[in-house]
């Protein structure tokens, strides 16, 4: 990513004057979170435009302020206090006319009805609980998925930004006898010092191991970051300014400070 070139392209000026498409706006938003220089230039342009537009200030009529003050809801509504009143007691009078037996039958049937009703409610409750828990599961899996997609999109956008740069070079790496079918491509931009790896075929590794990329400068290996075998294009988060040769070894997960030469399985010349 060539930041000065991006700033000079004029897209930031179009952005602040509101003359960009939705896609361009998202791109600028994304770039300004990644590159502080872009954010700073955007802020300076925004300030310039703020000052420019302020030159045209006109005091609005006082009536607008009054109307707004009357129209808007201010302050969070104050919680009303709950007043607890004693339950009204219904003192039924008389009752002597009903016989003891009738009272008993009525009480028993009311009790029975209540019992049936509560069984019904209980089964309803169970159903609802099941629905809720399955919805909760779906919801959390959707959220995880959305998170993954967001991460992936961020990655993809960064990679796309790297690939779009004309200075980005493509270096093919071929496997040696340890990985005869091994093939991968390294994308490298010496200006922005970004490196990405596209694994086309490499054997899968156990969970405690990862592939590590090295750049050889005058025969000395420099750590160029780790990557996995399964994914698509991956950015390795190590800045690489110089490289004569790129090489790949198998290392413990997280990478090693120096390459394990016995696991060297692919190399590629930068100027071949």
């Amino acid at each position: 990513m060539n930041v000065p070139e991006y700033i000079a392209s004029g897209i930031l000026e179009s952005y602040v004057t509101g003359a960009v498409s939705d896609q361009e706006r998202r791109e600028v938003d994304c770039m300004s979170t990644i590159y502080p220089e872009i954010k700073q230039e955007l802020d300076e342009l925004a300030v310039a435009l703020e000052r420019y537009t302020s030159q045209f200030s006109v005091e609005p009529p006082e009536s607008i302020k009054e109307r707004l003050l009357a129209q808007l809801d201010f302050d969070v509504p104050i919680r009303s206090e709950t007043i607890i009143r004693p339950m009204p007691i219904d003192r039924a009078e008389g009752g002597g006319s009903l016989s003891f037996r009738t009272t008993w039958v009525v009480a028993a049937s009311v009790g029975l009805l209540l019992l049936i009703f509560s069984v019904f409610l209980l089964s309803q409750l169970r159903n609802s609980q099941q629905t809720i828990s399955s919805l909760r599961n779906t919801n959390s899996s959707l959220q995880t998925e959305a998170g993954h997609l967001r991460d992936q999109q961020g990655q993809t956008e960064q990679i796309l930004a790297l690939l779009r740069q004309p200075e980005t070079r493509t270096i093919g790496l071929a496997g040696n006898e340890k990985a005869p079918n091994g093939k991968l491509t390294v994308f490298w931009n010496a200006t922005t010092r970004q490196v990405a790896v596209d694994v086309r075929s490499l054997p899968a590794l156990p969970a405690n191991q990862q592939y590590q990329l090295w750049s050889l400068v005058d025969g000395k290996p420099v750590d160029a970051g780790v990557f996995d075998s399964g994914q698509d294009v991956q950015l390795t988060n190590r800045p690489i300014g110089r490289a004569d040769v790129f090489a790949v070894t198998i290392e413990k997960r997280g990478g090693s400070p120096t390459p394990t030469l016995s696991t060297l399985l692919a190399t590629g010349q930068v100027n071949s």
Partner: protein
Amino acid sequence: MKRQSSTVSESVLLEKLRQRDQQAFQRLYDQYSAALYGVVLRIVRDDEQAQDLLQDIFVKIWKNLDNYDASKGRLFTWLLNIARNTSIDAIRARKSQPNNAIRTDEETVHIVDRQHNTEQPNSDYIGMQDMVNQLRPDRKQLIDLVYFGGFTHEEAAQELDLPLGTVKTRIRAALQELKQLFK
């Protein structure tokens, strides 16, 4: 310039605004209403409509305060964008009404004419013209067309009969010049 203290007081203001504090709203209004009203007026060019729009704009600001994210941009710029977008939507709606079709062309000509004529004294902007007039007239005309007229680059190129590339470089040059002017 007291940049630091102004950002501190701005975050306090925002905090109070989010608690729906009436005094905070009045401060926001007093601080920005003239600038926003100026922008709305310049876009719609009609006092009555501009007043209605300004009221709508502050209602919108009030309702959307929770969506403002200070880390993503400046408050004033956010407010300006709401004012500009609301006003441009309003003139587009006005233009799309068929019975106003004829007026539309006159209006466009009117906007362009006024912008060609940058030396024209205007009682509204007394004392403020100095800075504005330092901007090269061809650049000022283009900023006004795009920012206040809501023209896309393509529309502006057509309007001014210029190649699209010239429009783009001129907008960049204009903003860079403004940046230097207001440094």
